[in-house]
């Protein structure tokens, strides 16, 4: 089939799920407003019409219950996809996620498996305040037993979703609201991409070099890939050639691609929409330094939310989120070109 079709991330996710549901009767979806509504962020649009209420189940507002049920169903041979509407809501149901989904394979000595997908919306930038704007990448990536992915575009979203559904381990699929291509929320143009109509998978733990460059390495994922690309385009005008790496998954983390890039550029900027301390930015820098501290020609820079809850008011929220300008400024610092 032609691949000149440009899909939004939300439609790519829904298509990936539909393709798996057509071929694998053990796949089903449940969550709040995922049926008639099609998911608040569009990730299940059209599934109810095709597959019916048994396999596309609207749930009560009972996350501990239905995510726990997802664990049980997965251990009983199904492949559930459960949606946690906003990742911020993990507070009411984390026990089911990190003490059950993430640990049961290990506790059973590998005798049980939990092949479930927890898909959840992340990210801010649209004034939804501190309980509806977090990414919490590191919170999930920190806890062993879950694979964690966070795509930046529709092609990756479709392939990673299919891989997540087929994986025998629990996978947390973190999709950024601002990348979904929803008619009612601004989205970067590049998030919508050409998407093949047939099913395909992308492997976890393989970062993508979005832009090759020789002067500095920008490592990031999800929405911040687009901000980093904007920064790279601005830097190019100043003669700075930045390499931009989209990690695509946090667990497993493709340290090899990062190391190869830093070996080439000698300079590292890490960008994350999560909180700054104890997070992805530190993990990436530590991964480089513990391998070879000599790789870096200058202290690395990191941009992330400065350890405050995401504020509601627009000027304050925009201040705490990394953007193209702050990324470019940090990049210039690593290059000793700060104005």
């Amino acid at each position, binding site marked *: 089939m032609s691949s000149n079709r440009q899909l939004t991330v939300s439609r790519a996710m829904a298509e990936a799920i539909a393709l798996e549901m057509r071929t694998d009767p053990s796949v089903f979806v449940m969550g709040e407003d995922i049926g008639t509504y099609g998911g608040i962020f569009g990730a299940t649009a059209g599934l109810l019409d095709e597959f019916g209420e048994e396999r596309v189940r609207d749930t009560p507002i009972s996350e501990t219950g239905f995510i726990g049920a997802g664990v049980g169903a997965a251990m009983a041979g199904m492949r559930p996809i459960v949606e946690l509407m906003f990742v911020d809501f993990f507070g009411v149901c984390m026990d089911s996620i990190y003490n059950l989904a993430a640990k049961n394979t290990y506790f059973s000595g590998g005798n049980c498996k939990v092949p479930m997908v927890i898909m959840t919306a992340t990210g801010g930038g649209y004034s939804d305040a501190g309980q509806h704007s977090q990414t919490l990448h590191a919170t999930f990536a920190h806890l062993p037993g879950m694979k964690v992915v966070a795509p930046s575009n529709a092609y990756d979203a479709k392939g990673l979703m299919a891989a997540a559904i087929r994986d025998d381990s629990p996978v947390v699929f973190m999709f950024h609201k601002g990348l979904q291509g929803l*008619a009612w929320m601004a989205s970067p143009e590049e998030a919508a991409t050409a998407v093949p109509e047939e099913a395909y998978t992308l492997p976890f733990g393989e970062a993508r070099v979005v832009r090759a460059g020789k002067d500095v390495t920008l490592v990031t994922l999800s929405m911040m890939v687009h901000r980093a690309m904007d920064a790279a385009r601005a830097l190019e005008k100043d003669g700075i050639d930045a390499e931009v790496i989209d990690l695509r998954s946090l667990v497993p983390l493709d340290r090899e691609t990062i190391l190869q890039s830093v070996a080439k550029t000698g300079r590292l900027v890490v960008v994350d929409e999560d909180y700054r301390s104890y997070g992805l930015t530190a993990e990436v820098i530590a991964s480089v330094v513990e391998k070879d501290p000599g790789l870096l020609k200058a202290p690395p820079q990191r941009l992330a939310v400065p350890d405050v809850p995401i504020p509601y008011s627009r000027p304050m929220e925009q201040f705490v989120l990394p953007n193209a300008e702050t990324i470019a400024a940090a990049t210039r610092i690593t290059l000793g070109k700060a104005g």
Partner: protein
Amino acid sequence: MTDVTVPEDLWDANKTPEGIVANWFYSDGAEVPEGATLAELMVEKSSFDIAAPAAGTLRIVVPKDGTVRPGSVIARLESG
């Protein structure tokens, strides 16, 4: 040549005169099959998909974020 037209009864134009093209799912010049979802319209709070009435080469008339009304031609499909 086939026009891609916003259906006259898609929404109540007395209530909301204009909508916008929220998404194009094919680029200008793309070959599209009949029935393919071409575009998504956003009218106040509701979104509507527009399907290709025929196969052909897409010529976009109203770009993303452009305004539309019931009856607007948003694109043309060139055949052959």
